[in-house]
C-alpha cells in the first residue's frame, strides 16, 4: 500500500462545474511527486484537498493507511509552502520558523537548537532577527521552506514555490529543495506549471488536464512515451498524424503510404489506429528530394530564428509540420524541402 493515497476525489466549488473528477494518485514514502498542468487544471485544488483546506464531495485521502479526508488542518502535521510564501509579517525569521515548534510545546533550549539547525541548513543563520519585509524573494522562499520543514511534517506540500523567483534563483532553489527533501526523506507533492523544473526535480510526475490525471510516471517515461496526445503536446511534440494498421507491425498514413515506426512493436494489442507524434527537433531537413519511407516533401511557409537553430513551418500533404533545423543550411520561404521522420523518433499515442 502506498504512503499517501487519493482515491476517487471529486471537488466542485459551486456544486455544478466539476474541478476534480475521480482523481486517483498514489505516492510512495520519501517520493517527490509533481503535479504538472496548465493554469486552472486543478493542481492547487488537489493540493488543498491534501492539505485539508477543501473537503472533497466524494473520495478518500489516506496517509499511511489512516483516513484523513476529514481531519482538521492543524491536526495533519503537513508542511505547506505557498507561492506567496505567506510568512508571518509581524514575526522575525527566527520566530517564523519557531512558530510550529512553539505550538508543539517543545522546551525552549531544544526549540532554539532545532530552529537554528534548520536556519543553518537553509543558509539563513545570519538573518534570524530580520523581519520578512527586510528579505529578498529567495530568502523569503527559504524561510517558508524552513518553517514548513522544521516541524518534521509527514508530508510536504509545495504550491509553485519557485514561480516568484528569477531564472537563476529558480535553478539553485530547485536543486536546494531536492537536496533537502532527499536528505530529510520527506514525502513531497510539488505543484508547478514549468515542465523543465518539474522534470528535473521529480521522482514521478502527474500530468493534469481539466481535473483529470492524464499520465503518472517517471519524467523519462513521460518524455519518451507520452500516454496520449495531450501529454505529448505538453512535453514538446508538435507534429501529429493519423496512422492505421496494415498487417502486423506495419501502418499507413492518411495518404496510404507506409510509415516505418520502431515503437509499433510494443503495440501488439488489437489496436488498429494511432496518432503518431514527433518533436520538431527530431525531424531532419534536406534540400534535395530523397524518396523512401518516412519522407515528406513540403514548402517552407514561415521561418523563425530560435538562436541555436531555425524553426520552419512546412506545408506538406500530411498538413502543417514544424521542424527545427540547424543553422548550417538555411531554407528560404517558398522553397521545396524534404523532411525525414526517423523511425525511432516517432511515438504512438
Amino acid at each position, binding site marked *: 500500500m502506498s504512503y499517501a493515497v487519493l482515491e476517487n476525489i471529486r471537488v466542485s466549488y459551486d456544486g455544478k462545474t466539476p474541478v476534480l473528477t475521480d482523481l486517483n494518485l498514489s505516492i510512495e514514502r520519501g517520493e517527490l511527486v509533481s503535479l504538472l498542468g496548465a493554469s486552472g487544471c486543478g493542481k492547487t485544488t488537489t493540493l488543498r484537498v491534501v492539505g485539508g483546506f477543501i473537503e472533497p464531495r466524494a473520495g478518500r485521502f489516506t496517509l499511511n493507511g489512516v483516513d484523513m479526508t476529514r481531519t482538521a488542518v*492543524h491536526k*495533519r502535521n503537513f508542511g505547506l509552502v505557498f507561492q*506567496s510564501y505567506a510568512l508571518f509579517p*509581524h514575526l522575525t525569521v527566527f520566530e517564523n520558523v519557531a512558530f510550529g515548534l512553539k*505550538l508543539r510545546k517543545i522546551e525552549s533550549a531544544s526549540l532554539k537548537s532545532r530552529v537554528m539547525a534548520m536556519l543553518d541548513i537553509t543558509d539563513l543563520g545570519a538573518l534570524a532577527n530580520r523581519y520578512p519585509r527586510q528579505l529578498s524573494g529567495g530568502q523569503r522562499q527559504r524561510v517558508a521552506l524552513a*518553517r514548513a520543514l522544521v516541524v518534521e511534517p509527514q508530508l510536504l506540500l509545495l504550491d509553485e514555490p519557485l514561480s516568484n523567483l528569477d531564472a537563476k534563483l529558480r535553478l539553485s532553489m530547485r536543486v536546494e529543495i531536492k537536496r533537502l527533501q532527499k536528505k530529510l526523506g520527506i514525502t513531497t507533492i510539488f505543484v508547478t506549471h514549468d515542465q523543465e523544473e518539474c522534470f528535473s526535480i521529480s521522482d514521478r510526475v502527474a500530468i493534469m488536464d481539466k481535473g483529470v490525471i492524464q499520465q503518472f510516471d517517471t519524467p523519462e517515461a513521460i518524455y519518451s512515451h507520452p500516454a496520449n496526445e495531450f501529454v505529448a503536446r505538453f512535453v514538446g511534440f508538435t507534429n501529429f498524424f493519423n496512422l492505421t494498421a496494415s498487417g502486423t507491425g506495419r501502418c499507413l498514413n492518411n495518404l496510404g503510404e507506409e510509415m516505418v515506426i520502431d515503437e509499433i512493436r510494443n503495440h501488439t494489442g488489437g489496436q488498429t489506429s494511432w496518432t503518431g507524434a514527433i518533436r520538431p527537433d527530431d525531424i531532419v531537413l534536406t534540400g534535395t528530394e530523397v524518396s523512401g519511407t518516412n519522407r515528406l516533401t513540403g514548402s517552407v511557409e514561415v521561418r523563425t530564428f530560435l538562436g541555436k537553430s531555425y524553426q520552419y513551418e512546412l506545408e506538406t500533404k500530411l498538413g502543417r509540420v514544424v521542424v527545427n533545423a540547424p543553422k548550417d543550411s538555411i531554407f528560404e520561404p517558398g522553397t521545396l524541402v524534404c523532411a525525414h521522420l526517423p523511425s525511432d523518433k516517432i511515438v504512438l499515442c
Partner: protein
Amino acid sequence: MKRSVFLLLIAPGILLLTIFLFYPLVVTLAPTFSNNGPSLARYLAFFSDSYYLAVFFRTVWIAVVATLVCMILGVPTAYFISRRRRSKSFLMALSIFPLLTNPVVRAFAWINILGRNGVLNSLLLSWGWITTPLTLLYTDFSILIGTIYLFLPLMIVTLVGSMDTIEEEVTEAAESLGASRLVTFFKVVLPLSLPGIVVGSVLVFTGAITAYSTPNLLGGNKNMLLATLIYQRAMSLADWTSAGVIAFVMIVMTVVTVMVMQKVSRRLDRR
C-alpha cells in the same frame, strides 16, 4: 510640480479653512486665554471646579468604556465578516446601515427601548424578572449604550478594511503549522490587525468625546458631558467664554489621543 502651481492649487482650501475654521476658532478661543491680559486663570478655574471635573471625567470614562466595548464587539465581528466570500458585501452593508440614519432618530429609538415604560422594562416586568421598572434612561448607562451603538459600525468598517489585508494564505500557513482557528486568531490575526484596532479606537474615542445629540437625548440634564456642557454654557447661559474653555479642553484631548495612538500604532506595527 512647480511651486507656484502647487500654491495655486491649495489656495482655495487654505482660504476656506482660514475663513470658516481658523478665524472663528481664534475669535472664540482668544478670550479664554485672557483675564485683563494673557492668563490661564480660566483653565485653572475649570480644573479646580468640582462640577466641571466631574463632567470631564464622566466624558473620559464613557469614551474609554465605549471604545473598549466597541473593540471587544468589533474585532470578532469584523474578522467574521472579512473571511466571508459571498455574504461579505451584504454583511458590510448591514453594518454600515445604522450610519445612514440620523443620530437623533437613533437616540429616539433608544428612548423607546430604555424608557420607564419602554420595551425593555415591559419585557422584564412581564417575565417577572423585576417588580418595579428600572431607571435606565438618563443615566451614564443609557449614554454608553447609545454611544456604543453609534460608533460600533465605524469600528467594524475600519477593522474589516484592515483585516482584509491579511492574506488568507497566512492564516492557512498558521493552521498547517498546528494552530487551531482560535490560536491562529490570537497569534496571527490579532497582532496583524493592531494598526486597524488603533485607528478604529481613535475614531470611536474622539467621536465619543465630541458626540452631542446622543448624550443630550439619552443623558438629560443630570448627566452632562463636555459636548452638552458647551451647548448649555453657550446657548442657555450665553457664557461664550466658558464654552470656549471647554471647547479648547476637548480639542486638546482629541489631539493628544490621536498623537499618542499614532505613536502606539507605530510601535506595534513592526512589519
